[in-house]
């Protein structure tokens, strides 16, 4: 496909993009769609044309109808006891084939390294013995669970599903912001966003080959089945949800539905003889693989919080005995720990003997004296995060904080240096986003999802792009006013088969007929009419 010469293209400065250049310059960030001279980058040319053909009325009526579809379909997240639709912006984020190629390899590399790291941490701990990661840091992680020490999980995989958050810094370089190898959520929005966009902005789809995302549930199911305990021919997979009040409940139902498996709650499960069963109308049925969507702390009252009503007593022992596969494995949180994160480049070199493909964000470890001094001095220009936080909880952005907040924070850092890390404030890249009656630059991140079946790490093309809907905001979490964008990975060429399928090419003539010969009776007459 050839891009038309520049002077013939529709001007990007239609009403909707009025003032965009000014606002983009103000953020000082890398804009995904426009180069600094306000010419759309090649990846976005087709999209720009599609958008230029729309006026404000079109765009807002489509945005409205997409939002209504989400509510109708129940694509919501639960916030403070209220079901809210997850706002989907009409402008997708586009990633070119070469860029994706790097991201894909980088994400897979990280997953393989973290898998090896977790196996080691719950086994010989050679990573500590060899001085790559201090033992103290591993054992002091809140999510290092001694209860699962010393056994290899059935199926041999610990990180079945992961979400590696990446961002683009001011220079346009992708960097990993954090790893999610416990219960990464958000993939349901990837699937739903694509469905909604195919109907909301069809013009842009017909112009370029976009890699599909719909195979995710099948990939996931096949990975879960492949990691079932040995000796099970037809493994039964279930999704374990904390219940309807969980913020990601919609996702649990969607994934269970698309995989065609049962969605169970803790009270539906029974452990006996180190096997897990679910109560069904036909009696108890053995469960072989549990896709766990609840936190480790609530999983098994015998091992963790004894007041948990969400889990099922005995699960951890069943996993230890190899009677059930739990995905992701219990205890993975130690690899999510943000202090461990700062060691991941070394972890990659140690286990894989490779250089990291995607760099980390520079991180200050507050336990190191020099680093702590520097952080305490520059607190007003850094981001400080708790090591075990998720969803943007507890995060403090220095430049936005008041002096009192900074003083309180300083106090907490000194008291608990193990509990915090500090990073420079990254100007996350921006993508045009509908706001009121025009497009404005808004900051985005990206969470690619990877599925590991033990042999191969498959990365879903694209992933979840979250966007901070408030101008200038750097916090993209849904619980704090974030929305999402559909993420398009352009295929290298249109002819790339989306999925190789054997075609039945035998022509009708070669077939032998299987139906009985028609009786001639009176329906001759009917035949003649055809």
């Amino acid at each position, binding site marked *: 496909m050839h891009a038309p010469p520049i002077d013939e293209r529709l001007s990007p400065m239609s009403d909707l993009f009025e003032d965009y250049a000014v606002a983009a310059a103000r953020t000082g960030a890398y804009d995904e769609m426009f180069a600094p001279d306000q010419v759309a980058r090649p990846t976005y040319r087709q999209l720009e044309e599609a958008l230029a053909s729309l006026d404000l009325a079109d765009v807002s009526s*489509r945005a409205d*109808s997409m939002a209504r579809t989400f509510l109708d379909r129940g694509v919501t997240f639960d916030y403070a006891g209220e079901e809210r639709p997850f706002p989907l912006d009409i402008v997708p984020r586009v990633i070119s084939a070469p860029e994706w190629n790097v991201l894909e390899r980088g994400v897979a590399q990280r997953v393989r390294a973290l898998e090896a790291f977790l196996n080691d941490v719950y086994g010989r701990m050679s990573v500590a013995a060899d001085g790559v990661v201090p033992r103290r840091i591993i054992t002091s992680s809140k999510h290092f669970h001694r209860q699962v020490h010393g056994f290899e999980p059935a199926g041999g995989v610990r990180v079945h599903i992961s979400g590696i958050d990446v961002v683009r810094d001011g220079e346009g370089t992708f960097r990993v912001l954090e790893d999610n190898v416990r219960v990464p959520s958000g993939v349901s929005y990837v699937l739903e966003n694509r469905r909604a966009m*195919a*109907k*909301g902005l*069809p*013009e842009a*789809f*017909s112009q370029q*080959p*976009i890699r*599909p995302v*719909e*195979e995710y549930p099948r990939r996931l199911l*096949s990975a879960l089945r492949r990691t079932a305990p040995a000796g099970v021919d*037809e493994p*039964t997979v279930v999704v374990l949800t904390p219940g309807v009040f969980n913020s990601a409940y919609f996702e649990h139902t969607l994934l269970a*539905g*698309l*995989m*065609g*498996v049962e969605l169970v709650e803790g009270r539906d499960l029974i452990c006996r003889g180190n096997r897990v069963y679910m109560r069904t109308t036909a009696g108890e049925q053995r469960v072989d693989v549990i896709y766990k969507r609840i936190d480790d702390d609530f999983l098994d009252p015998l091992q963790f919080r004894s007041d948990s009503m969400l889990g099922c007593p005995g699960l951890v022992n069943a996993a230890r005995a190899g009677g059930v596969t739990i995905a992701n494995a219990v205890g993975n949180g130690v690899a999510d720990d943000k202090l461990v994160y700062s060691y991941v480049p070394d972890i990659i070199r140690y286990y894989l003997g490779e250089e990291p493909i995607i760099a980390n964000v520079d991180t200050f470890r507050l336990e190191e004296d020099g680093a702590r001094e520097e952080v305490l001095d520059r607190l007003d220009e850094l981001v400080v995060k708790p090591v075990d936080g998720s969803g943007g909880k507890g995060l403090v952005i220095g430049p936005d904080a008041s002096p009192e907040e900074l003083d309180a924070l300083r106090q907490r850092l000194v008291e608990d240096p193990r509990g915090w890390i500090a990073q420079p404030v990254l100007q996350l890249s921006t993508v045009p986003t509908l706001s009121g009656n025009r497009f404005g630059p808004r900051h985005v991140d990206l969470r690619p999802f990877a599925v590991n079946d033990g042999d191969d790490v498959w990365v879903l093309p694209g992933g979840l792009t979250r966007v901070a809907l408030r101008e200038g905001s750097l916090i993209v979490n849904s619980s704090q006013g974030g929305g999402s964008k559909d993420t398009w990975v352009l295929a290298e060429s*249109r002819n790339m*088969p*989306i*999925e190789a*399928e054997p*075609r*039945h090419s*035998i022509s*009708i003539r070669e*077939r032998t*007929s*299987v*139906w*009985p010969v028609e009786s001639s*009776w*009176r*329906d001759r*007459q*009917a*035949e003649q*009419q*055809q």
Partner: protein
Amino acid sequence: MLSRIAESLFWIGRYVERADGTARILDVHLERLNHLPPEDQRSVAQDLLGVMGSRPDHDEFGLAELLHSIAFDRSHATSIAGSLGAARENARRARETVSSSLWECLNTTYYGLSQHRKDVVGTYRFCHWVLERTAMVGGLTDTTMSHDESWLFLVLGRSLERADMTARMLSTREVHTAGMSWVNMLRCAGAYESFLRTRRAAFDDRHAAEFLLMDRLFPRSIVYALRDADEALAKLDPSDTRLGHINDARRIVGQARTFLEFHRTDDLMVELPEHMERVQRAVAQASDAISRKYFNRADEQAWVGEVS
């Protein structure tokens, strides 16, 4: 009851079901079609039109023409708008027999036909709206009409057409050369989740086709639809309950159903085109036999959907 009324009811059933099936097929395939470059779009659009039983009148037939001829063309009963118009016309002739809420629903649908934009985005909304309306027609038919002879004729038309439309949904797998054709087949029939819940193991083309052809519990499968038709025919003609040949329509429907229901094969996908052809032919023949037996004026009622 009057033959004329029975005939109208039969065709209301068929036309509404036809609009429903066409909207389902269009909704799912439009998404796929829209992703293609223009030259492929044209050939796929022509193939899809072929599955729906028409032929393009010129080589330039593309997406826009497809939308016109299977969604919006009021002058032909092969399109969604045309079918719904024809259903309403039949209901107008049998107004005293159908319930007033059913008539009103068909009439409102008819007047809503023109309130849609005819571009791609508009067509999605149109399909969605049509599915809502046809579901409402179905619900009102079953809950506001006595399940007597008149209702049976409506159900008979509906089930025969349903078998025919499912056969067409299965035929659409031939239309696309890449992508997950079986998922689309199932999504056309609204059967995706039901199917996933029945098959715990791996699934592919063959299982999906088998499900839509032969599943005994899924209401849009061909076997299920033919059984509905069979039951309606049996109730309509309770005189002959014992031996052998009863009437042509029952024989045709019964033979097709039993053949499919108990058919065993190792290579369903190779046989699929024959199954589809025979199911569509059986529906046409049964419809014809019903006309001869009950309506007796088959020559006056032109049904244009049987060319394939």
